[in-house]
């Protein structure tokens, strides 16, 4: 089912928000205002947005080290996200998590996670919780091609299949696990083939086509809500930037491969813009520019919010080690 024009525009706005957020996060990282590490999601926006458009606010997702896109797609507040990157008290984690650990349990975003495959068992537990609750909620695990080679992926998907948990396992195959190519490290041409080993459907989808991702996710969500168990969806995509923004981060990917993917014809955002213009004829350049201006303003506002926010007080270091208690200095 094709989403309504309004819904498609909302998907476009979210994808552009992710892209502009990432551009700003990398700029501010290189300017020294954001610390540690930033992993940019640029190029993969259609995966997070397409899947999250197919689920509800009370459905749950978990992310990876490359987590900003999933947060935004699930509806996270840009101000609190940017404040977290800036290490401020008003951030989602009160400045204790940073880029790799943004979570918003209130919207079902169970966190970015610094360990490859580390989030997969956790969100499978959310799927178990949804099953125990019996209210028809689903849980979605986002992970990469690299994680599909790790034990937690296989353990979790086996349990989810055996127990028919209401889960979507969404593999964002961007062809590279840091600098390890999937072609040399994944034992099958398509990660989705691995679904057969667990007796569940495995679907390959163009991960740069947000409507195709949305469609695949909708079918998997329906299956999960009906009690028929998990689906493995492999989204073929590409990250436009290096693994991280850190100065010492090598990028050994071939230049021609990068050029072929970072192209207007493959760009998930440019593709949706073109489709909206072609198919509906109602989306003008002016409207697109206006949408982009609004997005940029929201990002600028989030940076202003972050900069105006204080760093956490030092005594906050002792808070939240345990629930409702203070650690001892």
């Amino acid at each position, binding site marked *: 089912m094709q989403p309504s024009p309004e819904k498609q525009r909302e998907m476009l706005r979210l994808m552009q928000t992710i892209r502009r957020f990432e551009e700003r996060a990398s700029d501010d990282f290189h300017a020294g205002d954001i610390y540690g590490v930033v992993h940019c999601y640029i190029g993969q926006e259609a995966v997070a947005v397409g899947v999250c458009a197919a689920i509800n606010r009370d459905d*749950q997702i*978990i992310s990876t080290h490359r987590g900003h896109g999933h947060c935004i797609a699930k509806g996270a507040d840009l101000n609190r996200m940017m404040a977290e990157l800036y290490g401020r008290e008003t*951030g*989602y*984690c*009160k*400045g*204790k*998590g940073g880029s790799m*650990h943004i*979570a*918003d*349990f*209130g919207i079902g975003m*169970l*966190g970015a*996670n*610094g*360990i490859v495959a*580390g989030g*997969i*068992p*956790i*969100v*499978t*537990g*959310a*799927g*178990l*919780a*949804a099953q*125990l*609750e019996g209210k028809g909620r689903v*849980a979605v695990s986002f992970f990469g091609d690299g994680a599909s080679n790790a*034990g*937690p992926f296989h*353990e*979790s998907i*086996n*349990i989810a299949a*055996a*127990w028919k948990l209401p889960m979507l396992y969404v593999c964002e195959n961007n062809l590279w696990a840091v600098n390890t190519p999937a072609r040399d490290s994944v034992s099958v041409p398509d990660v989705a083939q691995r679904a057969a080993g667990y007796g569940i459907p495995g679907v390959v989808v163009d991960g740069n086509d947000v409507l195709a991702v949305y469609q695949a996710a909708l079918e998997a969500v329906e299956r999960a809500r009906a009690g028929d168990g998990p689906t493995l969806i492999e989204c073929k995509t590409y990250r436009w930037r290096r693994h991280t923004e850190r100065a010492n981060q090598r990028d050994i990917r071939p230049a021609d491969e990068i050029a072929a993917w970072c192209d207007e014809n493959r760009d998930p955002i440019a593709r949706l813009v073109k489709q909206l213009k072609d198919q509906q004829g109602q989306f003008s350049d002016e409207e697109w520019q206006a949408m982009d201006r609004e997005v940029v303003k929201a990002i600028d506002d989030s940076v202003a919010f972050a900069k105006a926010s204080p760093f956490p007080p030092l005594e906050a270091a002792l*808070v*939240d*080690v*345990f*629930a*409702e208690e203070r*650690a001892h200095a």
Partner: protein
Amino acid sequence: MRTISYAKAGMEALAEEMRRDPTTFHLSTEAPPSILEEFGPSRVRATPIAEGALTGMAVGAAGSGFRPIVNWSMVTFSFVAMDQIVNQAAKIHYMFGGQVRFPITFRTSVGGGTRRAAQHSQSPYSMFMNLAGLKMILPSTPYDMKGLLKTCIRDDNPVISFEADRLMDLEGEVPEEEYTIPLGVADIKREGNDVTVVALAWQVHEALAAAETLEREGVSVEVVDPRTLVPMDAETIRASVRKTGRLVIADEAGPTCGAAAEIAALATEDAAAFAALKAPVKRVCALQVPIPYSPALEDYVFPDREKIAAGIRAVMEAG
């Protein structure tokens, strides 16, 4: 009062808390028959042997409003789940700014004496104590097991219940009535004036036996059981040392960076306890080796009542 075993006390705690709170559920590679029968296979799940996944699933379910109880069986198997324990369960509440609570109880057996060799005879609780963000208990009696485990299940944090393999069949008095024991409160298992023995789990019983022997030699031994490893009741230990002026620590684990070392540091960092010391602090621990299989060797490497008694005599002679 009726007596029940250490193992049964644990199962009673589990059943009572599962009755009390419908958000509790149980994951283990074998479903315990008594709770399976009472609560059914939805809440008492027999899982694949995949401890990493189970542990992570408990974290996710806890963050989604449930109160999971996971039994790793032997602590050996917890190492398979180390990423989920160390990187996820211990840190997630703090790392996410305390957004939601993660009430999880992990049960696991520790210790030796079962002739199962190195991989199945371990007491690695100090490895977990070294992490911030996990609470942990180490009960020595059926009474403590039941009261502490109930508190663990009600706690809003990840808690590990380390349970001594050697004590599973130990019988002890446990009231029929409801009771709980707070975390972080040590128990003086025997009062004395000349020397403090802080003993853990099985070593509590060995220390009590040593105290009987030493009493006949005219030495009055106080036996302190911390019961909870995190948070540790440093004040009860310090107060005892301030009174007796001598400290022996008995632990079935090896000494290096162990709970015994932590207890020694906590006691002697207190100025009054340090000033009261008449002799150097003595650790009576397992030898720092993987636990060997042969009964002759296994019994040799573990501390026991004779070694504790020798340790007490040594500190008495030292000052």
